[in-house]
């Protein structure tokens, strides 16, 4: 059933997004090895998915059959999910102080050793194909849960992604929802300068998908689009292209085509955190 986004949920989601951004910066301060810019472009998406009750999940039973499966294929950019998972009780909040530290299960790129993550991440281009298998399995089990996948736009260069795009379209996997974090920047520059991905929507539509695009930093647009996609009918897999800004919230990163590999100094982080707070 579609819900419209009203107060107080709207304010809560904006507040959560602000908080996730702050926590992500703090994590980057203690673990400069983490990929900050690509973690910041997905903040609003995570806020809506988890706090907007788009995803069904149970922090106490991460293997519950009743959960929606969320495969985070762009593992590099998932540091911003750590505070969310800790906040929701997937693991203790104190763990956030240990990211990338000896003995911690929270690394620079999360694997399913972290409660709340479904798969092995870090090698790009696997998530969508795996999600196709999960989607088929759920259909075979006659279950109504959905499979969500989060991918980066740079990840679309992996050939295996298109094997899966073709497969999902041909099999009409209408329980599969792909979110592309289209932050326009890969590791060595803008995607349009590497191999232009546009027209992206059209590419998916040609392969039998239902496609739409939104501003991935607008809580309202993200919420409305994900609501709609979760409850849509139509025997087609769905892709939501979230137009985002890599490094969102950090002016120096937002304008840097090499933001993927840029770190912020502790002083810069402190002043950004103060500003956001």
């Amino acid at each position, binding site marked *: 059933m579609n819900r419209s986004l009203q107060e107080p949920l709207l304010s809560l989601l904006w507040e959560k997004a602000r908080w996730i951004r702050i926590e992500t910066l703090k994590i980057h301060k203690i673990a400069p090895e983490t990929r900050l810019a690509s973690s910041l472009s997905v903040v609003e998406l995570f806020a809506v998915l988890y706090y907007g009750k788009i995803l069904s999940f149970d922090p106490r039973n991460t293997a519950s059959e009743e959960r929606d499966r969320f495969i985070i294929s762009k593992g590099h950019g998932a540091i911003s999910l750590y505070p969310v998972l800790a906040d929701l009780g997937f693991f203790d909040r104190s763990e956030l102080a240990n990211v990338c530290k000896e003995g911690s299960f929270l690394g620079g790129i999360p694997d399913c050793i972290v409660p709340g993550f479904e798969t*092995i991440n870090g090698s790009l281009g696997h998530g969508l194909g795996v999600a196709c298998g*999960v989607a088929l399995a759920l259909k075979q089990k006659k279950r109504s849960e959905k499979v969500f996948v989060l991918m980066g736009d740079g990840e679309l260069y992996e050939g*295996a992604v298109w*094997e899966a795009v073709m497969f999902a379209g041909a099999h009409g996997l209408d329980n599969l929802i792909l979110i592309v974090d289209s932050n326009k920047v890969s590791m060595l520059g803008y995607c349009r300068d590497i191999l232009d991905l546009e027209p992206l929507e059209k590419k998916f539509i040609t392969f039998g998908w239902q496609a739409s695009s939104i501003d991935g930093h607008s809580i309202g647009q993200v919420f409305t689009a994900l609501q709609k996609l979760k409850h849509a009918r139509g025997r087609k897999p769905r892709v939501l292209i979230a137009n985002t800004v890599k490094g969102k919230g950090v002016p120096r990163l937002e304008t840097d085509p090499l933001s993927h590999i840029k770190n912020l100094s502790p002083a810069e982080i402190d002043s950004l955190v103060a500003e956001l707070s």
Partner: protein
Amino acid sequence: MMPERKTMRDAFIEEVYKRMHTDDQIFFVSADFGAPTLDALRSSFKERFINVGIAEQNLINVATGLGLEGFTVYAYAIAPFITMRAYEQIRTNLALYAQLKQINVNLIGVGAGLSYDVSGPTHHCLEDIILMRALPNFTVFSPSDWVLAQQFVDYSLAERRPKYLRFDGKPLPGIYNTGRRADLQTGFAELRAGEKLCIVSTGYMTHTALQAAQRLADDHINAGVIDLFMLKPINDDLLFKALAKYSHIVTLEEGFIEKGGLDSMVAHVLEKNRADIFLKRLGFQDSYVFDMGNRQQLHKLHRLDEASVAGIIKEFSHEY
């Protein structure tokens, strides 16, 4: 009585097909690759037979997704492509994952060694033992006949971890249908007891080993034959006990030698036990096979046919 010739894949799929009637937790996924026995399976189980097309990477990924949801999956393709085209998918989604959680995906690669003789080096598969053995959390099975292949179905259902099944492409005579027993937990079978010298072989080459041993017997050289079908995990201690009866060991495989294959496994077991045993490794040297001819002719060219192997062993036995 001539032992019945059959392909490993037909025997294996026939058995999987039977199980699928009573076990609804089995999926069979193919990268557009068939077999006579697969026709019945795919028409009877339209929902649980998936053809991903000629797309081995997606074959592994889709199989992984099904496996994550608890299904037992058989993923089926030509051996060099399922292993090498999709190696990183196998490593990431199966080998790595299986260290943290349970997943039962069985990769069936058809066309071990030079099974696809005249199709040339892209279709030859001389690296798979080395590559698949390198993956932690993987089981590697290399049967020498269809009886053993069929026997593996039970094991594949019970042992819930990723496995690579290295099947020959050609119909081969049975070895284990004549009263011989194979224990999958032991991982090998001494098909022929010898004196002083023993051939350790796997897959198709076990047939060559048996023939060579027969030929050597005519020359009064009594060579043993051990068929090593479980390449990972191996039972080091039991294998060493079997090898320790001999002073000379010859490894024989249809794959590259001196880079981590069957020969390296045996060498490791001998070295670990500080054994005073001579080892000779037979297989393919460090180059691909562009020569044209059928398998027997190619083997002859590379001195891996029955007569060449018997000749090499005879010479080796002079070192007694």
